[in-house]
């Protein structure tokens, strides 16, 4: 649609404007305001007036300025070239903006999300006469060494169509015609490698599937204790300094998703720079390729306009869904959804809406639900399997989990990794609390995990959780009467839990070996700690004093196995287990004789 004047500015109050003389403007239409060409979106229509939220600083807009309608909704541009890029909240490529306006982002500049002049090597996978339909894959482009970009028909096409014309294998730009499809009833579409999709609308799928495969993150506390399924949703709440961002970074680096979309929503500029500088140098342990080859970054830092912060979450999940439709498993990190909720609150306040709890608009829970519902393990329109897993950080004010964003988020996610301030203060990372966290996916991923661990995972997990629960009770007693009042058998539980925390739950994100832990190593590590508990308990029953067990050399080996044994040599743990058995036997025999 041609650009046209749809009205004039009536009032400016921060990032929310009122416009008058509105003719045929549509809800959620993308507009440009004044000659500064500030991007905005129509959020309310009332008589001949409209409310517009603008995505850039409103300074300089005056009443009477023109509003230009674009005829489109705020949409994401989807096509080859997204991977490895960094965008702001409304999908403007930041590298490109830098060449346009220098080190600071000036107003009113625009650039397409992907490079329209770059030629990609396209390989067709259908030929003239083939039956296709909406979402069908018609060819591929090698987007990065790691990601094969599958070119699809738009989801808005009819279900049954025929290929009328198909491009030969060769180099094409994203706007070049690569195919013509027709439904035989007069609808003919020209297909290019690029699609546009309105960011606030979920992309359609054929069906939902079960969530039985875990997303392996390499973080032991997550994988073993509180697993997340591919297609699942999880919230990470924690006050400032408890390590939300560190946990998000670790998961983004090491999880086994095909594509990562990392959304820095209202967070620190330097943190995004860290990701941007670090990821290209990190090597994925599974493919041996750079992590940037599977990552899309969205950086809408806290000092960038608040409306774009609100949009950034949707921009991110739209790109995630696009790659899901190709049959990939995508993980999306949103850091932090609280900033997004606060953006909603700020905009709602400017629109003078009636607030509900703590000034948040009454539709906050609906919006949170809509966002998390876009996750899932899906059968795509082309019949492939793909998933979008959502890992949302929450920053509760004052670290108080009873505030509205945490509470509403809890209603719509099925796993919860609560970060604990006292663990973070002791530099116990990841500071995921084992008392407050939960995962509803445990039963769903049980058979997958048991298949990896000779049916031991589920039982071992249950046993260690029981011990941790017992420890909490015992600690309460210790606080009242001191550790000496407990019998050795109970003190030993404290001992084992403390070992479990240092040797298993803690993980050093900066250590070459420890930062990623393979499934095999996790299973063995957990097993040896439980073995230590069993053998130790037997020994104590025989009368061996706890001090002697604690001083065994092998305990130090267990405590340091996370650093000393690499993922490839997980079998080394079996040797420690042998040593453990021998030491315990020797110790036991001393007391047998007495």
């Amino acid at each position, binding site marked *: 649609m041609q650009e046209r*004047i749809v009205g004039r500015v*009536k*009032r*400016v*109050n*921060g990032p929310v404007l009122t416009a008058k003389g509105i003719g045929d403007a549509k809800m959620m239409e993308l507009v440009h305001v004044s*000659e500064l060409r500030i991007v905005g979106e129509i959020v309310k229509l009332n008589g001949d007036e409209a409310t517009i939220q603008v995505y850039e*600083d*409103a*300074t*300089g*807009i*005056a*009443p*009477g*300025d*023109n509003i230009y309608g674009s005829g489109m909704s705020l949409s994401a541009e989807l096509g080859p070239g997204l991977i490895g890029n960094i965008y702001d909240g409304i999908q403007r490529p*930041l*590298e490109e903006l*830098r060449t346009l306006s*220098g*080190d*600071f*982002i000036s107003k009113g500049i625009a650039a397409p999300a992907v490079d329209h002049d770059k030629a990609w090597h396209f390989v067709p996978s259908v030929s003239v006469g083939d039956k296709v339909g909406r979402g069908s894959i018609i060819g591929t482009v090698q987007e990065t060494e790691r990601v094969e970009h599958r070119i699809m028909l738009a989801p808005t096409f009819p279900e049954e169509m025929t290929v009328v014309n198909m491009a030969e294998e060769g180099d094409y730009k994203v706007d070049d015609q690569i195919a013509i499809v027709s439904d035989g009833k007069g609808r003919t579409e020209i297909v290019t490698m690029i699609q546009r999709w309105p960011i606030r609308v979920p992309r359609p799928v054929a069906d939902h599937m079960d969530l039985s495969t875990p997303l392996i993150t390499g973080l032991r506390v997550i994988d073993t204790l509180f697993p997340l399924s591919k297609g699942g949703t999880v919230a990470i709440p924690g*006050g*400032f*300094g408890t390590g939300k961002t560190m946990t998000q970074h670790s998961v983004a680096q090491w999880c086994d998703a095909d594509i990562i979309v990392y959304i820095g929503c*209202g967070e*620190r*500029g*330097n943190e*995004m*720079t*860290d990701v*941007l*500088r670090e990821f290209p140098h990190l090597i994925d342990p599974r493919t041996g390729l750079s992590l940037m080859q599977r990552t899309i970054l969205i*950086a809408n*830092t*806290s*000092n*960038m306009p*608040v409306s774009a912060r609100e949009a950034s979450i949707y921009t991110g999940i739209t790109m995630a869904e696009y790659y899901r439709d190709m049959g990939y498993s995508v993980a999306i990190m949103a850091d932090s959804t609280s*900033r997004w909720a606060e953006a909603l*609150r*700020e905009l709602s*306040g400017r629109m*003078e809406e009636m*607030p509900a709890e703590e*000034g948040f608009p009454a539709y906050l829970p609906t919006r949170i639900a809509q966002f998390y519902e876009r996750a899932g393990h899906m059968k795509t329109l082309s019949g492939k399997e793909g998933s979008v897993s959502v890992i949302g950080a929450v*920053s509760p*004010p*004052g670290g*108080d989990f009873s505030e509205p964003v945490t509470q509403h988020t809890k209603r719509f996610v099925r796993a919860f990794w609560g970060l604990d301030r006292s663990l973070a*203060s*002791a*530099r116990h990372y990841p500071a995921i609390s084992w008392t407050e966290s939960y995962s509803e996916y445990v039963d769903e991923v049980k058979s997958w995990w048991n298949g990896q661990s000779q049916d031991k995972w589920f039982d071992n997990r249950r046993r260690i959780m029981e011990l941790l629960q017992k420890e909490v009770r015992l600690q309460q007693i210790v606080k*009242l009467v*001191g*550790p000496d009042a407990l019998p050795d058998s109970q003190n030993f539980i404290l001992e084992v839990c403390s070992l479990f925390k240092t040797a298993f739950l803690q993980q050093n994100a900066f250590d070459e070996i420890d930062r990623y832990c393979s499934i095999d190593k996790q299973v063995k590590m957990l097993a040896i700690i439980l073995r230590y508990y069993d053998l130790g308990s037997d020994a104590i029953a025989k009368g061996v004093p706890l001090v002697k067990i604690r001083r065994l050399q092998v305990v*130090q080996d267990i405590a340091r196995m996370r650093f000393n044994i690499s993922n490839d040599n997980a079998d080394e743990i079996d040797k420690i287990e042998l040593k453990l058995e021998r030491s315990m036997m020797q110790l036991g025999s001393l007391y047998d004789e007495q």
Partner: protein
Amino acid sequence: MMNSEDDRLLKESDKALLRGRQYSGASRIDGPLVYMRNTHPVGYGELVEIIAPDGSIRSGQVLDTSDDAVCVQCFEGTDGLSLPGTRMHFLGEPLTLGVTDKMLGRVMNGLGKSRDGAALPTSVDERDVNGVAMNPTAREYPRDFIQTGISVIDGMMTLIQGQKLPIFSGNGMDHNQLAAQIVRQAKVRGGKSDFAIVFAAMGVKYDVAKYFIDSFEETGVLDNVAMFLSLADDPSLERTITPKTALTLAEHLAFDKGKQVLVIMTDMTNYCESLREISTQRGEIPSRKGYPGYMYSSLAEIYERSGKLMGRPGSITQLPILTMPNDDISHPIPDLTGYITEGQVVFDRDMHGRGIYPPINALSSLSRLMKDGIGEGMTRDDHPHLSNQLFASYSKVQEVRNLASVIGEEELTELDHKYMEFGEFFEKKFVSQGFDEDRSIEETLDRGWEALSILPAEELQRLTEEEIEAHYRG
């Protein structure tokens, strides 16, 4: 409908004509806000000259603009304004500051006007004080260690060039002394660098400002300091603009002149109070404790103006000071600050009471940029694990102390006694230091080892065997 290109040209010429106009007669004055009706279309955020009945000129900024009326906030207060006698002149541009490095050594008010009587050097470079967001792709990740000479900071919450590290303090504690000590001692190792200091005071008392001036004078850095003072008796609204003015100059010094700029802002609590005041006056919907919903964004617009840019030598390091109301770290001001800044240095009333200077509570303090600025080649190879171990052991001390307060110290195990001893040593010999004491990083780390050597070696699981071999003296 009019052709849009003609329309645009017409409007531009209109604007140029209208810029010269002056309007008289306000329709309403409410606190710092002045409303005026029947003006030409005025741009949002435009700078306004307000001419009082007595002829004095004050500055203001457009907060809300519509067809019917304009709402202007007057930075220098509305005392003495009358409805018919007030005139306004809309300048058609945002609030700017003329920047030049000759402002170093001068004292200005919150708007950047001279405060010491003498005229300011002229500048041709007028900058919008609101600044524009730095492109994250243009940033350079900060990694250069700044040695402050203060053990607990250098050892456990290392300050990095380009970082924003606030001091969370409370009324009556030594935050000003600490800030002054950092200014005196801060140095980058292994290189001469061109330091400059920008000092912004919001709503603090004259004696606090005087303390800093004297301390800068003593150290002989006064010629390298630009001061923006908006003291307690200045209009409250001026405080909302003071940090922005100060940072506009800091950006010029850092990114155009290549200086390493240290920005000290005290007290951010007063800035937030002013935000709340103006928001309430405008009848906005409040969020927590009456503070406006956009306080996070406002604070971010200040704090995010620190950092380094690729290919430019300078940097902006921020040390904002804020006093936590009632020492409550979960109060919205420290809370929102902590979510934006790269860590925090937290003062502890109890340690202050026990005469420990600086009374920094290591456990709740943090430096997020520390991980990439320490270790081999930057400080010393054992630094990362050592600080990690100090945190872990000191947190254990807290547990033991809690236990001791319930069951009595005599009942503690031998190991727990060791922890008590470690805790004492750590607080008295490591954290505590003289007001003029400048410790090198090596001395700091050695003291850390001395403290850890009190504990048995098998308790030190965050350290590698080699490190223990090399440094442990227990």
